[in-house]
């Protein structure tokens, strides 16, 4: 299901949480919305998922407008979407299986079917046989698995993930993301992922929108945004985010004056040496690494360029010609 947002706005008093957001979220893809805390992510997901109405603007699911539905239509429509949360939000008064059954119960589905489907879903998320476990006995990862099963119970068209991995350790995060990716393919879901973690976008998303102060500052395919970030917020996410420190080998604590990003083909070529040969530029590499973004290899390098500004300028031009993005680090 395709989601279209047109000029969405939402204020809380004097706080402009979401200002003029227009986005198209393609069908059957994993779409990431990333931003720092306070960027308006949570408000935006509440608007897209019909939990809140915008002050102005429109939300469309395929060819249907959903931001102005009547109460009855709204409830019917919400039963066609799934949502998972940072704090899992499972019912502590129900065990794992009964949690999964809840969305089907409220739609008055037949008891035998509910039981059968709940068991199936439990197996799908890898928790076979844990149906009667009280929620408090489950680990964070297991809780999120139950929440995913619950969200999928009514075979939704869209799955919203609101900071779904933020409370999990890196290893569990990877497992949950892998599960979401697998399910997305299996069930032809449109997944909208709200996060502040760049590695979530890197590992799971096809598309990304970067949110800052309630506005979309950058948007596109993840591989493209990662290769040539335009906005400062995105660059900040890419370099100061955990992803830089995790996947990059550092020789020096100095950050370096330039950040180079290589993608695809460029990672295989000896481009630095070629540029040195052509321009006489001297490179001092401070940190470098290769990471996989959505199946595509991407190189990153923090360095200084010498011996003087003139040569550096020429070298940067050459690098850019070679399809490498060069950022000046402030």
């Amino acid at each position, binding site marked *: 299901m395709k989601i279209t947002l047109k000029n969405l706005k939402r204020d809380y008093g004097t706080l402009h949480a979401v200002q003029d957001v227009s986005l198209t979220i393609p069908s059957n893809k994993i779409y990431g919305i990333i931003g720092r805390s306070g960027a308006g992510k949570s408000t935006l997901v509440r608007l897209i*998922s019909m*939990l809140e109405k915008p002050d102005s603007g429109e939300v469309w699911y395929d060819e249907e407008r959903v931001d102005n539905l009547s109460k009855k239509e709204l*409830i*019917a*429509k*919400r*039963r*066609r*979407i*799934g*949502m998972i*949360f940072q*704090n899992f*939000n*499972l*019912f*502590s*008064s*129900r065990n794992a299986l009964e949690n999964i059954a*809840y*969305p089907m*119960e*409220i*739609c008055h589905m037949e008891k035998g079917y509910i039981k059968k489907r709940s068991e199936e879903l439990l197996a799908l998320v890898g928790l076979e046989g844990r149906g009667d476990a*009280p*929620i*408090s006995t489950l680990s964070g990862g297991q809780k999120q698995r139950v929440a995913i099963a*619950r969200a999928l119970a*009514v075979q939704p068209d869209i799955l*919203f993930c609101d900071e779904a991995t933020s409370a999990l350790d890196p290893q569990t995060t990877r497992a949950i993301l892998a599960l979401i990716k697998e399910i997305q393919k299996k069930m032809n879901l449109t997944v909208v992922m709200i996060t502040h973690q760049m590695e979530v976008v890197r590992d799971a998303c096809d598309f990304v929108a970067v949110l800052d102060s309630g506005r979309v500052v950058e948007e596109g395919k993840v591989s493209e945004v990662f290769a040539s970030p335009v906005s400062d917020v995105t660059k900040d996410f890419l370099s100061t985010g955990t992803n830089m420190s995790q996947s990059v080998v550092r020789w020096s604590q100095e950050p370096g004056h330039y950040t180079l990003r290589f993608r695809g083909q460029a990672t295989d070529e000896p481009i630095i040496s070629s540029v040195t040969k052509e321009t006489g530029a001297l490179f001092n590499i401070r940190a470098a690494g290769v990471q996989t973004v959505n199946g595509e290899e991407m190189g990153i390098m923090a360095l200084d360029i010498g011996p003087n500004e003139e040569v550096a300028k020429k070298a940067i031009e050459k690098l850019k010609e070679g399809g490498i993005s060069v950022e000046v680090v402030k």
Partner: protein
Amino acid sequence: MNQMINLVMSATGETLVMVFFSTLFSLILGLPIGVLLHVTSSEEQGGIIPQPIFNNILGRIVNVLRSFPFIILMILLIPLSRLIVGTSIGTKATIVPLSIAAAPFVARIIESALKEVDPGVVQAAKAMGSTNAQIIIKVLIPEAMPSLVSGVTLTIINLIGYSAMAGAIGGGGLGDLAIRYGYQRFRPSYMVAAVLVILILVEVIQVAGNKLSAKLLASR
């Protein structure tokens, strides 16, 4: 001695009847009011159908009823008792003012138990397309159950105390026994016996309530 045992036994029976039915009726009256108080409160307080004006008025009424001294309420409600049970004295008649006195207390206890429910869970239920009735019946009340049980325990204990007070206007039960025999006829043994039974009742209810609440929590 035999006479005393018989009197204490029958007074205990009367107290139990009074407490049981007034707990039941105060729950029937107080539960919907407590739920209304919670669901119509502001969104920040977890209300799912915010109605500030209604909430304010209802809250004030509950407060006024709660601040009435029970003994005065009992006298004020004599005509109502007569209307409902046909008499204004005795065990049955006392159930009316007891229920009405405890209802606002129950309403507040239920309200505060519901307020403790994690708002995230309610949001999840809403996002899944629950109707308001479904949120109340399938989410709020089950999630708040351990606190609700503690609240009901407290209500029962309060009602044991109130029912003893009702003895003062001829309500029957252990309080009546203590006043008529122990105080007015100068028989301290009756007083002691009545107080002891009340103590035991309170203790038993408290322990049972705590156990049930703890058991509910442990199975989560």
